[in-house]
Structure formats: C-alpha cells, structure tokens
C-alpha cells in the first residue's frame, strides 16, 4: 500500500487543502488516485474537466503507476498571464 502525497491548486486546493497523504493499492495509477479522492470528497466530481496531472514535478498521464513516496500534483485548467 504505497503512500502518495497529493498537492492541489486553485479550485481543487479549496476542496482538498494544499496537500494531503493518501494510501493506495499496489500498482495504483493516477486515475485510481483521482477516483479515491472523489470518493472521499464528492465535491471534486464536477472538477475533472481539463484536469492535468504531474508526478514528481513532471506532467504525466492518468495511466501513470504510482510508487511509495511519489508526489502527485492536481492541475486544473490554467489561468496565468
């Protein structure tokens, strides 16, 4: 059961806080992580559109497998500039 650190931004931070730990099944992917978060926080449901992920400071796809100690960033649609 790897423990993953989740960091969230903007709208998602308002729901999840800036950062939290979550324990996942072995071989869990980023998609599984998101599903687990939505289960805990139903308010995340509508916030999937345009969402991007990064693992350990690199953008990654939802199929990325996670390991103990990974840090996953949840990146809602950008608004910089």
């Amino acid at each position, binding site marked *: 059961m790897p423990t993953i650190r989740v960091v969230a931004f903007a709208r998602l931070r308002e729901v999840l806080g800036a950062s939290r730990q979550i324990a996942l099944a072995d071989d869990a992917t980023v998609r599984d992580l998101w599903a687990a978060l939505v289960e805990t926080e139903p308010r995340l449901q509508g916030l999937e559109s345009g969402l991007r992920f990064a693992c350990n400071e690199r953008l990654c796809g939802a199929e990325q497998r996670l390991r103990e100690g990974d840090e996953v960033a949840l990146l809602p649609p950008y608004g910089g*500039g």
Partner: protein
Amino acid sequence: MFAIVDEPIDPRALEAAVRTPACGGVVSFCGVVRESADDGRAVIGLRYEAHAGLARASFVEIADEIQATMPEVRLAIVHRIGELAVGDIAVVVVAAAPHRSEAFTAARSAIDALKERAPIWKEERYRDGARAWIENRCGEGNR
C-alpha cells in the same frame, strides 16, 4: 531570467539581463491587472497561484522552443504570484534580438505559450465581494 516570484517584478532589470551589445531590438510585454473582467465586472484585485517548479520549467521549455527557430533571441519570463491590485504587473516577458521582427515574434509567442502551458491560476476578486477562478480559453491566441 525564468522565475515565479512573490514580489513586484522590475521589467528594466529583466531587460538588462537579456540584452547584449548584439541586440538592436528589445520587446517587453507586461501583463497588468485591469479594473474590469472580460464580462465587465469591476475587479479590485487578483490572486495568482502557481506550481512553481513546473511553471518555471515551462518557461524554460517555451524559451528553448523559441530559440530553436530563432537562435539569436534572448528571453526572460517572470510571473508574479500572490495578491495583486489593479495596476500591478502580473507577468513580464522580455525578448531581445539583433532585429525587431524576431524580438516581437518571440515575445508574442512566449506569452501566448505561457497562457496555454504554464501551471498558474488566477482568482479574480470583484468589488461586490465575489471571487472566481478564471481559466484561459484554449487556443485563444488573440486576447
């Protein structure tokens, strides 16, 4: 020259950092907090958040891509985060090049790419007390 900062940005310092004696044209873009939102609502300020590591990496990547086609261009990209008031500078892009055409093209490309690719978020705060996260519209290169 590529940074996320939480203090006011000094465009002149960035210009000095990128200019060389070979540069004949320097184009600076400053994105400034304006008093009204796109829907016309009165804005009193903004708050920016960023994934600092990824955002900085995206600035470097954007500059690398531009320099791949225009090797003589030199770039600086800095975005401020935190609370900003109307009139504050949120982002500065500086492009210096031997000739003006490359400098204009590079500065424009860099800010367009930043809006699309940099993990930065903007919350508008309105005079009526409301606030909202504003997303850059995709492919909206002409705003």
